[in-house]
């Protein structure tokens, strides 16, 4: 007997019910994916030579949860990883975090360590958002899962010259000569080469470099270096240094009774909290040309308030801002992707268009290489133990003070 299949009222109702259940629960699949926090492996140099910076970046992580909630973005489950300021350890920790379930990676402050993590992320197909690393090659490899919301070295230097020219025009006073001092490590030497190359593209730069002095960043005494710089009679001091040497050089400037018209720093050290605390009134005056934040943006004020609450007495800086923004990118992409699928997340990051952010410039977008090329850099100045942004004018909250007040008149 041949069976005849036909739709009865009963099977139709059952089918409708089943379809209803499927249709009804389908959105819950997305919601449940969104309901579970995204597992983010945050790789930072928490020990070793860069431990202080890694711990400072962690402050940016600490304040993120509350801000994401206020922005109605999904929560993140942070999985901490320590690179130990070591490239090979960074690579191994990235692999371990992925094996332990990390769905996205963030980090790692340093270009060498970030390069190693980028290779692992690309190989495993896990999205990686770099917080801080300026070496251009990282986003020149054709990677599909690597994104960077931080300016590359060339951009930092060209913005530094643009901002200097703007500052000297605004104050109507410019140094005619400068001595360039830099640490003799990889960073300092690369910056010195970049500085010389980029300076040629800015003929309006008012000063000439009369002498370049390389020094050992781990030196216990920098009196010879400063004496040599002073002997050139230069009006300005251009610096590429780190924290400890910045403090030693400032002490020598005072002791050797040399007050340059301007100290122009192209790197860390001169604006860091420990520099301000250690030197007190003698810390005032130096200008630093760095990736920074726009003090006038709404989210900046929220981030500043959150940091002040979590870590009283700590000034908001590059480390906090760009680590927070890397996590902001992750949460924003997770919300739009609707799942933690790595490819969907990477596609969502590529389509990022965050206007409500902290860093200077139009916001966070990524080009085909995964680089936020629209980022702007700032000029900041130490004033009374605080930092004010003096350029570009579109993202500043104070007018530049130039020339610097002599050390013996403070």
């Amino acid at each position, binding site marked *: 007997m041949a069976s005849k299949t036909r739709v009865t009222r009963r099977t139709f109702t059952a089918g409708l019910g089943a379809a209803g259940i499927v249709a009804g629960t389908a959105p819950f699949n997305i919601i449940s994916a969104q309901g579970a926090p995204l597992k983010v492996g945050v790789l930072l140099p928490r020990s070793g030579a860069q431990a202080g910076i890694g711990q400072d970046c962690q402050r940016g992580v600490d304040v993120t949860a509350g801000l994401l909630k206020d922005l109605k973005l999904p929560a993140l489950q942070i999985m901490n990883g320590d690179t130990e300021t070591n490239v090979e350890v960074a690579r191994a920790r990235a692999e371990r975090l992925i094996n332990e379930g990390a769905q996205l990676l963030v980090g790692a402050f340093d270009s060498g360590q970030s390069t190693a993590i980028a290779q692992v992320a690309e190989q495993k197909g896990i999205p990686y958002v770099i917080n801080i690393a300026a070496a251009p090659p990282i986003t020149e490899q054709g990677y599909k899962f690597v994104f960077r919301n931080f300016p590359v070295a060339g951009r930092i230097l060209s913005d530094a010259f643009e901002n200097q020219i703007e500052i000297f025009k605004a104050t109507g006073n410019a140094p005619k000569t400068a001595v360039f001092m830099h640490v003799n490590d990889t960073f300092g030497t690369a910056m010195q080469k970049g500085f010389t190359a980029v300076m040629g593209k800015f003929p309006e730069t008012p000063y000439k470099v009369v002498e370049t002095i390389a*020094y*050992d960043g781990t*030196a216990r005494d920098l009196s010879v270096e400063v004496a040599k710089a002073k002997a050139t009679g230069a009006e300005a001091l251009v610096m590429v240094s780190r924290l400890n040497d910045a403090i030693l050089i400032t002490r020598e400037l005072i002791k050797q*009774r040399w007050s340059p018209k301007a100290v122009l720093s192209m790197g860390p050290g001169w604006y860091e909290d420990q520099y301000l605390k250690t030197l007190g009134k003698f810390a005032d005056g130096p200008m630093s040309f760095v990736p920074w934040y726009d003090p006038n943006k709404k989210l900046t004020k929220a981030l500043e308030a959150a940091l002040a609450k979590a870590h009283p007495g700590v000034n908001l800086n590059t480390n906090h801002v760009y680590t927070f923004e890397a996590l902001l990118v992750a949460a924003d992409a997770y919300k739009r992707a609707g799942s933690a699928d790595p490819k969907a997340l990477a596609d969502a990051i590529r389509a990022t268009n965050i206007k409500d952010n902290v860093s200077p410039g139009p916001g966070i977008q990524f080009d085909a290489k995964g680089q936020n090329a629209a980022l702007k850099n700032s000029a900041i100045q130490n004033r009374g133990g605080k930092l004010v942004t003096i350029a570009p004018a579109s993202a500043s909250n104070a007018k530049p003070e130039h020339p610097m007040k002599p050390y013996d008149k403070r």
Partner: protein
Amino acid sequence: MTTDVILKIAISGVLTGLVYGLMALGLSVIFGVVRVVNFAHGEMMTIAMYLVIVAFNALGLDPFVMLVPISAVLFALGYLMQRAIINPFINRPEHSQFMLLVAVALVIVNALLLIFGPDSQGVTTSYSFDSFDLGGIIIDAGKVYAAIAALIVAVLLFAFFRLTLTGKAIRACADNYNGALVVGLNVKRLYALTFGIGAACVGAAGTMLMIVTDVTPAIGPAYTLLAFVIVITGGLGSMPGAIIGGVLIGLTEALGGFFFTPSAKSMFSFAILVLILLFRPQGIMGRRTA
């Protein structure tokens, strides 16, 4: 370059060299008597430097006020370390002693890292930014004070070894170990005392160095190496040699850095070391052994 700039740099090098000399003096004293090379020398000095930080931050005490107490603490540390750890290794092969003291150095570095963290720390006294103007030659006041203190400590040490009975007994141990035993000297106690005195020298040098520089836990090995360069240059075991070596290295680094490139300052001190090893292996003030 004007003469006064060169003169200023030379004076600065000599002043720094005197403090380095005091640090190296401790190493030289220990080796000259106990015949153990202290590979934890620079690390022991960082302990003294952190004690200055603690005293300054907690009680506002000036490093000069802390000179004697910190030297006393380091003396006790050195004395106990010799009795408890080093003494059992006195008659063991040199590589065992080397490994022991390298291990001690590692423990000190990591303990300081755990307690104080990796950032550099310093003290800012009322004279931290002072300098003297001697007819256009500007001299760092802190370095002058530190060098004077280093000289006083060195003179007191020479006087101790020359004029006191204990000092003479220690010198007897250094000159003839068996003879010292035969005449009934308590050699073990004298060894511990010597190690304590060497550590006290390091304590004084570390306290003085805090006036002119900052400290990080990782800086210890660099000071150990510097102390070796100085004592080998001056003559291992020779007390005046340590001071002369310190001044020579300080001066060489300062002038070499000024006339050539500052980033290669230490290259000049190592060049001096190589020349000394080639042409006068016993050092400037060292005695040639048969």
